[in-house]
């Protein structure tokens, strides 16, 4: 069971970094306290992990044939990548780190031919469509909900709906994060048959929740301050669109990046509002997630296994 420590660390890092996207707005705007936000996040992450998380375990665990030691190397590599990228203050996606690391395992076992090309293509397409999908979803949500919001007659009612809305979509965002990303944490060990899918969901969900409860404050406030200046309505749409995007990819059984979804959602609204929502930093964010993280993880797990 000591092998699971690497998974718990990965889950903890995921919780510390990614839960900021769902409640960052609420905390940075002092709508809810950090403590309440992390408690809600922890609760809904575990709920999402338990209800829908097991669906994605096979995508991670059966990408290639894993045994206990290769699963451990894959998870450890992903954890190291997340730790290094975070310490360098570079954006990182655990989905891309773990899938890259597992691809490295496959490469080390049988070279290029050992990579399941059909699964890989499907996953890569999903990664590309994460920000693009979130962009389209946020644009559609904006077009539908903005006229409705404008029909709210009272300033106060509007303000109250926004307050409630940000809490509700935050909870939903935490739920989809748990559902979609829990397999990143323990999927490899489920594939190696160390634990079952439900056990994986429990351990992974708890690890993500722990990360949120213990170490998410700084990221939560800094991410929230980036999202909130968009305005309460746009912040609400951004979190909702990214949550729906994660829900869709959960149904497709592919773990994707929550951070990239939220960037896509912001860009989507930017197009509609005529604001310059794309900047070099955002493109760098997506590029890093798509290219650097998986390649770094692939190289690391490959190197660890060859050595």
């Amino acid at each position, binding site marked *: 069971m000591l092998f699971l420590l690497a998974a718990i660390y990965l889950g903890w890092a995921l919780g510390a970094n990614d839960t900021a996207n769902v409640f960052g707005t609420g905390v940075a705007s002092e709508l809810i306290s950090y403590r309440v936000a992390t408690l809600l996040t922890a609760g809904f992450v575990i709920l999402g992990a338990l209800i829908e998380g097991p669906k994605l375990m096979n995508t991670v665990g059966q990408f290639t044939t894993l045994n206990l030691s290769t699963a451990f190397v894959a998870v450890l590599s992903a954890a190291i990548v997340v730790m290094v990228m975070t310490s360098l203050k570079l954006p990182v996606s655990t989905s891309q780190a773990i899938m890259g690391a597992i691809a490295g395992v496959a490469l080390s076992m049988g070279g290029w031919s050992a990579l399941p090309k059909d699964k890989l293509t499907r996953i890569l397409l999903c990664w590309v469509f994460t920000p693009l999908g979130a962009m389209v979803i946020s644009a559609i949500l904006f077009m539908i909900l*903005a006229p409705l919001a404008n029909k709210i007659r009272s300033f106060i009612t509007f303000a109250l709906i926004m307050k409630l809305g940000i809490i509700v979509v935050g909870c939903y965002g935490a739920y989809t994060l748990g559902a979609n990303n829990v397999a990143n944490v323990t999927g490899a060990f489920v594939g190696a048959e160390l634990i079952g899918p439900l056990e994986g969901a429990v351990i992974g969900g708890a690890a993500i929740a722990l990360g949120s409860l213990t170490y998410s404050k700084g990221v939560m406030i800094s991410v929230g301050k980036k999202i909130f200046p968009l305005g309460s309505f746009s912040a609400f749409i951004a979190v909702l669109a990214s949550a729906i995007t994660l829900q869709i990819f959960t149904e497709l059984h592919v773990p994707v990046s929550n951070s990239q979804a939220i960037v896509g959602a912001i860009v989507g609204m930017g197009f509609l509002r005529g604001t310059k929502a794309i900047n070099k930093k955002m493109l760098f964010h997506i590029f890093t997630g798509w290219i650097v993280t998986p390649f770094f993880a692939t190289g690391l797990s490959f190197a660890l296994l060859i050595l």
Partner: protein
Amino acid sequence: MLFKKETKVQELIQEHVQTVGKAVNFWKEAFFHYLEGNKEDFQTRALATIELESKADGVRKEAQLILYKGAYLPIFREDLLDLLELTDNIADDAEKGVDFLRIENPVILSSWSGEIKIIVEKSQQAFLFFKEAFTMLFKERSATLSSTHRVQKAEKEIDKLQDDLMEKIFQSPKLGLAYKMQLRDLILTIGHVSDSSENASDKVALMAIKGRI
């Protein structure tokens, strides 16, 4: 209760505007009684204005405290804090008006009193248009701007009336300069009520526009 703080702030903001409205009403009555020479009635209205200004201050502070404790999202909170401050200025100006009469006790010739009454009445009207805009902000945001336009229009008329009256005063050969200056200050003090109503109404207009997506 989920919106306990917000509900309380909403009640207090409404109470604040009502209190300021009562202060402005007593301010108008105080001026009318003063101009008509009813000193006793003037005193009671003036004291009521001062008392209501003080009450409005208390309500404003209570609402601000809850807002600072985190009621509403900051984007709305800042607007509400500004609006409270601007609305409170109207009551402050009403108090300054009655204080002017109480402290300086200026002699107002009957030939000017008719025009001063019109300026006072129109200033109160400007406040009432602001109050209407304020109410619309909480009931029907889309109708807010028509009321704020009325405030602007009323304020413009008041400016014109003030300028005309001050011109007449300063052209009068029989009056001393000190007296003319005292009357000018009085007229400007009256106009501050409509100026502040316009400032508060501008904030309401901005809030209504800002709320549109």
